[in-house]
């Protein structure tokens, strides 16, 4: 039976294997309009970007659509990449911008609730049903609380929390992805962490937000 994939230590880091072409080489192929470059880049990072976007959007459909859009934009803009940052950082920056656009489009339409509980937790916790029943229940409950707390955060707070905790980015990487200065990032992240803790505490004590 399927066990859930374990979270890698540095999901934003390159997943290039030693014998494989580098991310930069794949992007250069994209710039030369060689589809093989994009195909390899997509297969290398689609899961990582999908996971990131799922946590930002809360919707598997939106996350899949946004992931496709990331690679389309990478293909179209490959010749503009300056090679000053890592390709993965650039892809995540594109993903963040797409998620922001998606949120602003949704805000302009009648409010559609962020699927905070069962749907998102189920989408993210796939595979845990085979664990020991009690552990699975407990894990599912914690996962539900976490996603409920994430759903209650503002878009910008959620962005920082996902990058910091789920993707295990350091300040430097988050700065590159979000474009925030070090001071602003440090302050905003501290506030976002406080809010997340408050939401989790309320969920655990059964209190209202």
């Amino acid at each position, binding site marked *: 039976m399927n066990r859930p994939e*374990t979270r890698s230590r540095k999901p934003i880091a390159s997943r290039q294997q030693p014998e494989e072409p580098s991310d930069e080489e794949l992007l250069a192929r994209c710039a030369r309009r060689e*589809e093989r470059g994009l195909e390899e880049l997509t297969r290398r990072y689609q*899961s990582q970007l*999908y*996971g990131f976007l799922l946590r930002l959007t809360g919707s598997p459909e939106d996350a899949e659509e946004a992931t*496709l859009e990331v690679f389309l934009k990478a*293909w179209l803009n490959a010749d503009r990449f300056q090679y000053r940052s890592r390709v993965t950082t650039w892809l995540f920056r594109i993903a963040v911008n797409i998620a922001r656009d998606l949120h602003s489009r949704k805000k302009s339409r009648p409010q559609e609730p962020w699927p905070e509980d069962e749907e998102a937790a189920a989408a993210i916790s796939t595979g845990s049903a085979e664990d020991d029943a009690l552990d699975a229940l407990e894990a599912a409950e*914690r996962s539900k609380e976490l996603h409920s707390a994430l759903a209650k955060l503002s878009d910008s707070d959620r962005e920082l929390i996902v990058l910091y905790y789920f993707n295990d980015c350091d300040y430097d990487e988050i700065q590159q992805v979000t474009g925030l200065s070090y001071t602003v990032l440090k302050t905003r992240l501290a506030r976002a*962490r406080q809010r997340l803790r408050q939401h989790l505490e309320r969920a655990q004590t059964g209190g209202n937000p």
Partner: protein
Amino acid sequence: MKCRDFDIDCAEWLKGRLAETRAEEMRRHEASCHKCAAIARAERSVMAVVGAQPEPSLNADLWPQLLHRLERQGHASDAQAMPARRFHWRPTMRLGWGIAGVAAGLLAYMTMRPTLVDQTAMVPPEDEVRVVEMIAATEPVRYVEASTGGLELSSDFEIQRGLLVGDGD
């Protein structure tokens, strides 16, 4: 250490990203401050929950969908397709086009110059009468001389000439 600084650095400390001297300050502060000890406990709890989360998995490879979109939007490459190159102005090209532009301007000026001169030339004196006659023939002016007290009709030709050449009173 202030509690606010502890709160800001708490997650970095628990992730093991602080320098040892700073980490030691954090440990001491946690041991001496109940409020910050609670923050550290909550932070550890968040990290444990996040760490237990499985990586979301995609149900399908996105490449076929992506390829389909590229083809639909006409971005996919094929055997005949040339790589799309953005046009860049090079300094030598700028200079070349600049020289060509100046040359074209000069040529246009030289071509138009006689016409411009003709348009601004004065009517030679010998043609004056002919011009006045032509004007008078097309649009004669009726004028009544009032200075004599009588109704004396002046010649159209003379009046017209006076108006045009300006030698009348």
